[in-house]
């Protein structure tokens, strides 16, 4: 799965940059986000672990023995995995800051910083990431795998999530797909917070906040359905 995702992301990047040329994309990033191509790419790559950390951190709790040994304790399943994953999330944020800071230093990049907006977007990103993690756990409890969700998440992030390919260069039909991915809102608002562009932020921030809240609610529902399924049928094993 990781290999397929890597190939899809690599191919998508090559296609976009090969067909359009880096200078054309650079012009788009400059116009849309008031940042150079390098600044655009670094901000995408640096902040991407926040989007995927929920899925990867929570997946360690998806084996039958992990689930069972947590479920027999008096603490709730959600509370347990959130408390246990706190360090993982903090590490992801630290890695993001380190990668971003190092890139700025080594490549001499220049950003403008709207720190309150940046902090709020990262917070929403963490909520989104937790939601995706819960969603994946709930699906795993019932269907025993999350390959499709992982593929969708990673390919959407790389291909149409505005992480490394600006949405403005995508074909119009693909852009409609982009607008339904939470990653698009996350990466775009991050660029606005760092690029000092003239784009009105509320038109993106409000849908992103609503999206995150809805996704969180939906993920709680899916996880609770998954746990009910386990109570009826056992975990991955039938006994």
């Amino acid at each position, binding site marked *: 799965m990781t290999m397929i995702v890597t190939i899809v992301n690599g191919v998508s990047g090559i296609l976009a940059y090969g067909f359009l040329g880096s200078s054309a994309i650079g012009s788009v990033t400059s116009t849309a986000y008031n940042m150079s191509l390098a600044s655009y790419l670094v901000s995408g790559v640096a902040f991407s672990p926040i989007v995927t950390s929920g899925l990867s951190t929570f997946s360690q709790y998806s084996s039958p023995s992990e689930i069972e040994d947590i479920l027999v304790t008096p*603490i709730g399943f959600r509370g347990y995995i959130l408390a246990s994953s706190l360090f993982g999330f903090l590490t992801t944020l630290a890695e993001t800051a380190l990668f971003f800071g190092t890139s700025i230093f080594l490549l001499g990049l220049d950003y403008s910083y709207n720190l309150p907006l940046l902090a709020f977007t990262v917070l929403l990103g963490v909520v989104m990431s937790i939601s995706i993690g819960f969603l994946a756990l709930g699906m795993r409890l019932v269907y025993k795998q999350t390959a499709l969700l992982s593929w969708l998440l990673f390919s959407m992030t790389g291909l149409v999530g505005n992480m490394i390919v600006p949405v403005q260069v995508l074909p119009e039909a693909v852009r409609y797909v982009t607008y339904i991915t939470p990653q698009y809102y996350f990466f775009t608002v991050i660029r606005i917070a760092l690029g000092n562009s003239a784009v009105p932020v509320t038109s993106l921030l409000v849908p992103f906040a609503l999206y995150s809240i809805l996704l969180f609610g939906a993920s709680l529902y899916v996880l609770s359905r998954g746990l009910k399924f386990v109570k009826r049928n056992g975990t991955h094993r039938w006994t």
Partner: protein
Amino acid sequence: MIPLTLKNVFKSFSIKRETGSPRTSSPVRTVLKDVTLEIREGEILCLLGKNGSGKTTLIKIISTLIEPDEGEVSVCGHDTRREDREVRRHLGVMLNAGEGGFQPRLSAMSNLEFYAALYQVPASRARERARSLLQDLGFEGREWDQYQSFSSGMRRRLALVRTLLPGNPVLLLDEPTLGVDPWTTGDIHRQLKGLGKEGKTILCTTNNISEAKALGDRVLTLDKGELNEWKPVLAGLS
């Protein structure tokens, strides 16, 4: 009050088959049939049965992991369906796999302290009790070693220490000595008998007849979902 009671418990599972396989038997397997059981305070009950006889399912039903299709289960007066969290507060559960929930990079002691916090055991008491249990079950000098450095037998022993740590009144142990060396098995038996004398109610599953005889105040068998008194002569197992 009887600490652990089961009344007319039934449980079935639907079986998943490989696509295209011949349909030779029912796709539903009944694992527990009308199981009724009471375990008194301070009693150690050993449940003897072959692999796949339903021992683990019974433990999982009592520990609120799965719900019975029919029947009632209560732990210290709390119903497992309606008061599942309250039930879990009174239970110490060691499941067959028993290695979940440990953080591989944390030491045995830190893992136990984290677990004790889930049961709201005060930190100082948790450490003192963990130290004593670790010493009794062969972890002397290795309390601060990372979990990932332990062998599978040691991990199992640590899972038992974790189960005993909060000092809950009812203990459910699913094959606690599986893969443990004979010397430590003796230590575990002594530990459990001591806990029985202290008034803990213990349900211990095993497929080892000598263990059931050595440990249990009472031995029952579970065969094809039915619970029976153990009759060694009739079973040809004495």
